[in-house]
């Protein structure tokens, strides 16, 4: 099937196209130079054309996500969808059921989404849910920042052994990237404790967060994975944590990115940095240090971040940072779920209400916005809400509108938010507004590049996957700065969405709810001789300490409908 998208205003930062009127040709699921006469024409005149959105960090599948649903029927009944034709029913406002998740991302013009935390032992569950998340291409990041094998290898300085172990684990769990969450802190949580900062060692293992980050970044580049280490820093949500954040970022400064696939140029990815940009010493003198973080980003090229923007909603927090969730439970008195996973990681889930009347939450909102607006190069920053932690992903259109309109922001700051938003941050003094080009950068291009997927994702050049979003907004006649409500509406429901060259959203309606997306994973071949030794060591420990046999740990190919291995040799 051939299509030609005619006369749209194209925003494609990876190819330096900024609002040019041009045609996009599609054949057999790919963007091509030209198509024949018989190609179906989609008229996009007076509309925006962008590549399909790429979500670098979200929580949409797996044990803690599902516990979030299970624990909160009150969230599920807030937002329900009936079955309609081929479209499955579902429910959930902050944690939608899997089908609804796929549909709603697609409706916003997103076509790729990465599940950011997969406990390796429970990888099957993550993949089972991903299979039931339609349309989207996806992948999942195995959690390695509190893994006993990794801790022991790195404690002994055996980075190469660690790399061999990780190479095996990526294949065994069909994982995509190394995820590190509160390194050593979650292990300490195994005993009800936590670590503070990057130089506080894990109990009994004696290795520090700093050593874990360094070792894992080195191992990552030794293997040559497409994505960098994906780091959730220590001390999340603590006043004064920005120093820990900057110190963590600095660890990777002199390690060179050397991916064997893709065009990544960073050696470290900092996630939901809004939660890590806090000054002060307590909630009383809490203040923004986002300018310091943005300054670091402006001066350094080895790092990119996603924001984790607060959307001021009632939501469900969930993370592998077990001790943080326990703190949140003691702070709120709300219900608390936790799951510690043997030898590997932990997790927690707590409902949370971000209120515009609350001084801290208002400041958190401002900090996220500051990160977006003070970081000069949108090639270093990505739009996320750390779904659903800072808010559900369905609020992305509103964030886009906030970024594009200082009027929209100021109305909120003046009329809705607590005075701390202005007093404890610099947000009220910033009048920068994102252009559509910047929006395309932070919602697609940057993520595709740092994930190592920019050959086929995040752009509209020839050879890219034909994942395309068309939005009904005419930048020649409409002004995003004043017409921000329209921006919010058009990014909520795209006019057309193509996935792999098929029309899935047509005139603002999802028409193909049953197609399957790819599952990306890395098929690592590192050092086969070394891997053999490492695995025989791992096997011994499996017998002693796991409650699952080694042979039942690897998940096999059956848990992906469209397996998309990336070969790393």
């Amino acid at each position: 099937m051939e299509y030609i998208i005619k006369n749209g205003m194209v925003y494609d930062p990876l190819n330096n196209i900024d609002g040019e009127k041009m045609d996009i040709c599609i054949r057999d699921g790919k963007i091509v130079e030209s198509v024949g006469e018989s190609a179906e024409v989609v008229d996009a005149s007076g509309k925006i054309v962008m590549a399909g959105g790429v979500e670098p960090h979200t929580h949409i599948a797996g044990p803690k996500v599902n516990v979030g649903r299970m624990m909160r029927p009150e969230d599920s009944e807030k937002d329900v969808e009936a079955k309609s034709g081929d479209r499955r029913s579902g429910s959930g406002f902050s944690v939608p059921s899997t089908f609804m998740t796929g549909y709603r991302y697609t409706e916003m013009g997103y076509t790729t989404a990465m599940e950011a935390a997969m406990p390796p032992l429970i990888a099957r569950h993550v993949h089972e849910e991903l299979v039931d998340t339609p349309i989207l291409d996806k992948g999942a990041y195995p959690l390695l920042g509190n893994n006993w094998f990794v801790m022991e290898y790195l404690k002994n300085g055996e980075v190469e052994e660690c790399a061999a172990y990780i190479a095996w684990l990526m294949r065994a769990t069909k994982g995509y990237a190394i995820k590190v969450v509160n390194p050593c802190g979650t292990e300490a949580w195994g005993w009800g404790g936590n670590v503070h900062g990057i130089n506080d060692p894990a109990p009994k293992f004696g290795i520090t967060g700093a050593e874990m980050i360094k070792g894992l970044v080195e191992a990552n580049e030794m293997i040559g994975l497409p994505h960098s280490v994906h780091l959730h820093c220590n001390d999340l949500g603590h006043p004064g944590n920005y120093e820990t954040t900057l110190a963590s970022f600095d660890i990777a400064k002199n390690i060179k990115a050397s991916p064997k696939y893709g065009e990544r140029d960073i050696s470290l990815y900092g996630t939901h940095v809004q939660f890590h940009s806090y000054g002060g010493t307590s909630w009383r003198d809490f203040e923004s240090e986002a300018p310091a973080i943005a300054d670091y980003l402006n001066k350094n090229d080895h790092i990119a971040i996603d924001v984790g923007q607060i959307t001021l909603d009632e939501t469900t927090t969930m993370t592998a940072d077990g001790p943080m969730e326990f703190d949140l439970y003691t702070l709120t008195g709300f219900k608390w779920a936790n799951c510690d996973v043997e030898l590997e990681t932990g997790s927690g889930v707590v409902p949370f209400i971000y209120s515009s009347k609350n001084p801290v939450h208002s400041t958190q909102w401002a900090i996220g916005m500051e990160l977006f607006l003070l970081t000069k190069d949108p090639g270093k920053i990505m739009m996320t809400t750390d779904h659903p932690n800072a808010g559900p992903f369905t609020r992305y259109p509103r964030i886009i509108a906030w970024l594009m309109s200082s009027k929209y922001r100021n109305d909120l700051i003046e009329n809705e938010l607590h005075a701390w938003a202005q007093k404890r941050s610099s947000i009220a003094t910033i009048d920068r507004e994102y252009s559509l080009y910047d929006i395309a950068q932070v919602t697609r291009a940057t993520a595709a590049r740092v994930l190592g997927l920019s050959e086929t994702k995040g752009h509209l050049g020839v050879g890219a996957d034909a994942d395309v979003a068309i939005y009904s907004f005419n930048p020649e006649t409409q002004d995003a700065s004043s017409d921000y409500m329209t921006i919010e509406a058009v990014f909520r429901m795209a006019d057309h969405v193509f996935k792999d060259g098929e029309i899935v959203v047509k005139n603002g309606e999802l028409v193909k709810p049953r197609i399957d997306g790819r599952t990306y994973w890395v098929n690592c071949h590192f050092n086969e001789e070394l891997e053999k030794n490492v695995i025989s060591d791992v096997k011994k420990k499996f017998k002693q300490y796991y409650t699952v046999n080694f042979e039942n740990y690897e998940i096999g190919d059956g848990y992906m409908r469209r397996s998309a291995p990336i070969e790393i040799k």
Partner: protein
Amino acid sequence: MELIKNVPCPFCGTLCDDIICKVENNEIVGTMNACRIGHSKFMHHKDATLYKKPMIRKANGELVEVEIDEAIEKAVEILVNAKRPILYGWSSVSCEADEVGVELAEELKALIDNTATVCHGPSLLAVHDTGYPVCTLGEVKNRADVIIYWACNPMHAHPRHMSRHYFSRGYFRERGRPDRTLIVVDPRESDTAKLADIHLQVEPGKDYELLDAIRAAMKGHKILYENVAGVPRDLIYQAVELLKSAQFGNLFFGMGITQTSAKNRNIDAGICAIEELNEYGGKFTLIPMRGHYNVNGFNHVCTWTTGYPFCVDFATGYPRYNPGETGTNDLLQNKEADAMFVIGADPGAHFPQRALQRMVEIPVIAIEPHRTPTTELADIIIPPAQIGISSEGTAYRMDGVCFTMKKIIDSDLLSDKEILKRMLERVKEIHASESKMESVKEVTSPAK
């Protein structure tokens, strides 16, 4: 003889994955490592009847063997024509079958529910109220110095649970049993209670009182009575001291507390106690002792597809959840249900009499390999290939760790998933032709 190793056992929620099956001529002739119950699941109990062909009950009550197509067609006919069908069971089949089941329920506007409704359903209600602080079983094995079994008897119901997670040596508990203290709460002196360091012999049905006293004592309050729920005050103090000084404790709890009078309120109190115990410097978690090997799996599948773990009603087209109104027993006992589809469970053996009376009145379809009390009530019986023995599939252990169940021997029968898929396709066909008829009617009816 062939030895097939690392087989996960399709019996209880412990899902031991180290079973060795001895296979000869496509028959399992023996097992190693399995407990007695697991062994008999693989081998089939000598007095059990294993169905080989689908059957339909004739008007005179006699079961007659039929071909699979006929059985499926008849089952679909019953379900499509029912106004308030229930799809019940789902705990001894694979997650893949459960997924098709949820879609079938959606297509039929039926109610879907699993065995949690009569076992750990109250635990799920308590999770909605207070939370779910759990860990995987390996955490217990590697770290736990205090283990509580409350209202469960693993020595008989989950026979290898204690040897795998309590007696066994762990990373931080090198000696195994001597490094751990065992508290058992049970009105009986069960075989599990006999092993306990502290046995709190609670009076039947008074678990809530005891939990309340424990929580009060934990917070430093004095207990005013010499005995609470039949347990001496000093013994409660002793247990509380032990809990508060634990490095890592875990509570395993069973149906003796989920299904006695206060039900979910018991579990509320239990979860709160565990949450509070984390405030004394040590770590505490809990794990419900799930029964069927994949009862947890259905709750997960149902949650990720609909948003709710069980008792999901599709009558309105979207998932609705209100246990007490949308439970299998509610619909049966209120005589709302007019057809029942049973898979991977035996309600005939476990449901209260009023529910069974309704099951006798309405058509019942059973996807069931064995002759059971449910099949005695069934109008259609379709035997499937059994998951973990003659077909593959995924199952979730009581702690959420999942396994790929193995196919050990071949079977001529369709798997649960295949049967359900064929039913779903057929239902869709019927619905499609019905809606076509509707639209034809609309076109041909004269305009008013």
